C-alpha cells in the first residue's frame, strides 16, 4: 500500500501519540515460529490511542499493510508534517472513533519500524540478522500481536480491522483466536495470494536480490541496496493503482518537458512518480524486511493453514461478525476473492456483511477518503459495540 497518501492537517486528530515497545520471550524459551525456528525474544513497536474502558471491552486492533507501521493516527510531535497512515479513519469522531474505542496498532514481526526483524541485532552474533532471520508468516505476526494484547490486559478485542496484508492478519485472528475477537473487518484483502500477486512480489524481491549491494542480505555495514529496493517499491506501486487511476493521474503527460528527451530520463509523469515513490521508500524501509514481508504475504493460505484445504472448514473455527469490503478496481485482490471468503462464512452460518465499493483508484482505495467506507465501518462498529453495552 502507499502510505500517508491523504490527510487533513486541520481536521480532528488524536493529537500526539508515541511509539511504545513491548518485549517478550515466552518465559525464557523464546518464540517458536511456524517455520520451526525460534527467536530468543521478540519486540513489538506499538501505538495506542483513545482510552481503554473499565471492563476493557472497547479495544480495536488495527493491522497495518505490507510496509506500514504502528503509527496509525495522530502525530509524534508538533512539527510532524504528516499524521499516522490511517488518520483519515482513526481519530475523534472518525469511523474508528477514539472517543469511543481504544485503538492498538503494532508493527509486525519481520518489519523494520521498531519490531524485531532482519535489521535487529542477533544476540548470538551481535550483528544484524539479515537473511539469517527466520522466515515469518502472517500466523507468526498474529501470535505476536496476541502477546501484546495479553500484555495490555485485554481479553477480548471488540474488533480487528485492516486492509490488504493487514486484512490477512484480521482473517488469521478471526480463525486462530475466535474467542478473543468479537468482530473482524478484512478490507481489500484475500485468503490467499493469486499466482499474479505472487508473481509481482517475486519481481520485487528479485529487484532487491539482483542489486549487488544487497550482498545476500548482509549490507548493514556496507551500504544498503537502495536501487533494488526502489525498483521493488515501483513494482508494488503499479499493483496498488489501476489503469483508470493511472490514466487519470498521469495519462501520457510528460514530466517537466514539452517533448520527448530521446534518452532514458523520466520522460513521462508516471515514470517520474514511480521513481519518486521508489526513492522516498528507500529512506524509511529496509530491503530485507521487504523480502520477509512479501514472503509472509505469499505464504498466507487460510484454507490450507486452518482448513485442510477447505475455506469453509477454515471458517468453521470462527465465531465473530464480519464486515468484508472490496473495491471494484482492485485487481491485486479482486472482488471474487472477497466473495469467496463471504461464501465460506455464509456456509458456516456466520454473521457477515459485504460491500463492493465502486472506486476507480485500485487497491489503494481503502486508504483514500471514501464516505461509503466510513459509513460501513462506523455503522458496523457501532452495532458491535452496542451489542455489548446494550446501546448505552
Amino acid at each position, binding site marked *: 500500500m502507499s502510505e500517508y497518501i491523504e490527510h487533513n492537517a486541520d481536521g480532528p486528530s488524536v493529537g500526539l501519540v508515541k511509539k511504545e515497545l513491548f518485549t517478550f520471550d515466552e518465559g525464557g524459551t523464546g518464540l517458536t515460529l511456524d517455520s520451526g525456528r525460534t527467536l530468543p525474544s521478540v519486540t513489538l513497536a506499538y501505538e495506542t490511542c483513545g482510552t481503554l474502558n473499565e471492563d476493557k471491552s472497547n479495544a480495536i486492533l488495527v493491522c497495518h499493510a505490507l510496509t506500514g507501521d504502528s503509527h496509525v493516527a495522530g502525530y509524534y510531535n508538533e512539527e510532524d508534517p504528516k499524521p499516522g497512515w490511517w488518520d483519515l479513519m482513526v481519530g475523534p469522531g472518525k469511523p474508528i472513533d477514539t472517543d469511543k474505542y481504544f485503538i492498538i496498532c503494532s508493527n509486525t514481526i519481520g518489519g523494520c519500524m521498531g519490531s524485531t526483524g532482519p535489521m535487529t541485532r542477533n544476540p548470538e552474533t551481535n550483528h544484524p540478522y539479515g537473511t539469517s532471520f527466520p522466515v515469518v508468516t502472517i500466523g507468526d505476526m498474529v501470535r505476536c500481536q496476541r502477546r501484546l494484547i495479553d500484555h495490555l490486559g485485554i481479553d477480548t478485542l471488540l474488533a480487528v480491522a485492516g486492509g490488504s496484508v493487514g486484512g490477512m492478519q484480521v482473517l488469521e485472528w478471526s480463525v486462530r483466536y475466535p474467542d478473543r475477537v468479537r468482530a473482524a473487518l478484512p478490507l481489500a484483502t484475500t485468503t490467499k495470494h493469486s499466482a499474479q500477486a505472487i508473481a509481482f512480489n517475486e519481481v520485487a524481491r528479485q529487484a532487491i536480490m539482483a542489486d549487488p549491494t544487497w550482498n545476500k542480505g548482509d549490507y548493514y555495514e556496507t551500504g544498503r541496496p537502495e536501487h533494488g529496493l526502489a525498483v521493488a517499491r515501483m513494482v508494488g506501486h503499479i499493483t496498488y493503482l489501476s489503469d483508470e487511476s493511472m490514466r487519470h493521474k498521469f495519462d501520457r503527460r510528460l514530466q517537466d518537458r514539452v517533448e520527448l528527451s530521446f534518452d532514458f530520463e523520466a520522460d513521462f509523469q508516471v515514470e517520474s512518480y514511480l521513481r519518486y515513490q521508489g526513492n522516498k521508500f528507500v529512506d524509511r524501509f529496509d530491503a530485507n524486511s521487504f523480502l520477509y514481508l512479501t514472503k509472509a504475504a505469499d505464504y498466507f493460505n487460510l484454507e490450507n493453514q486452518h482448513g485442510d484445504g477447505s475455506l469453509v472448514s477454515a471458517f468453521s473455527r470462527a465465531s465473530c*461478525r464480519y*464486515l468484508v469490503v472490496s473495491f471494484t478496481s482492485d485487481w491485486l485482490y479482486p472482488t471474487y476473492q472477497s*466473495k469467496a471468503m*463471504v*461464501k465460506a462464512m*455464509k*456456509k458456516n*452460518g456466520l*454473521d*457477515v*456483511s*459485504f*460491500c*463492493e*465499493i*465502486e472506486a476507480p483508484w485500485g487497491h489503494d482505495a481503502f486508504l483514500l477518503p471514501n464516505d*461509503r467506507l466510513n*459509513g*460501513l465501518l*462506523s*455503522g*458496523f462498529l*457501532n*452495532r458491535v459495540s*452496542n451489542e455489548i453495552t446494550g446501546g448505552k
Partner: protein
Amino acid sequence: MRFDLQVIASWIEPGSKVLDLGCRTGSLLSYLTREKNIIGTGIEIDEDAAGQAIAKGLSVIHGDIYEELEDYPDNAFDYVILSQALMQVSDPETCIRDMLRVGKLGIVSFPNFTHYKNRFQMFFTGRAPMSKELPYEWYNTPNIRVIPITDFRRFCSGMNVPIVKEVAISTYHHDEKGRVITFLPNLFATFGIFMLGQSKG
C-alpha cells in the same frame, strides 16, 4: 414503513431468523430487529442501498439474489422475504424454490397488475398502464414481469408450493396506510402478499 411491509412484519414470529431479498436500505429488517428481536440478514444488489443498510448496523450482503441464495445451507432461516422484487426476477421458479430451500417459509409480495385502475387505463387509453405501484414507461421499467394475484396462485399450485397464508391489500397515503381487500382482490387490491411453505414430499 410501507403498509405491505407492516403486513409482512405482522406475520413474523419474534426471535426468528429472517432473510430479506432485495432489502433496499433495510427498513423492514430494522423494524423487525427492533420490534421483534429477529436475527436478520439482507441481500441487496445496489451498492448505495446496501451500504446504507450496513451503515445502519444491519447484516447485509451486497450482491445478486440468485448467487447469494445459493450459499446458504438448507433451512438456514425461518423466513425468506421477497418484497416487491419478484417483478424484477428473471427466473421466478428457481428463485422461489431456492427461497424455500434456505427458508422454512417464504413471503412474497408484489403489486397486483390487474388492479381495476390498470385495467381501465388499458381499456380506455389503449396504452400500457402506469400506476403509483408500477410508475414506469415500457421503455424504462426495471420490472420485467407483470403479476396478477390470480396468476400467482396458479403459478404456486403449478410448482406444488403450498400457500400458507395470503392477503390482498390496498394502500393509500404514501403507501403507509392501507386496508385488507377480501372482495374480488384480483380487481381491487393494489398488492398481493403470500406466505409459501415448502413442498411436501
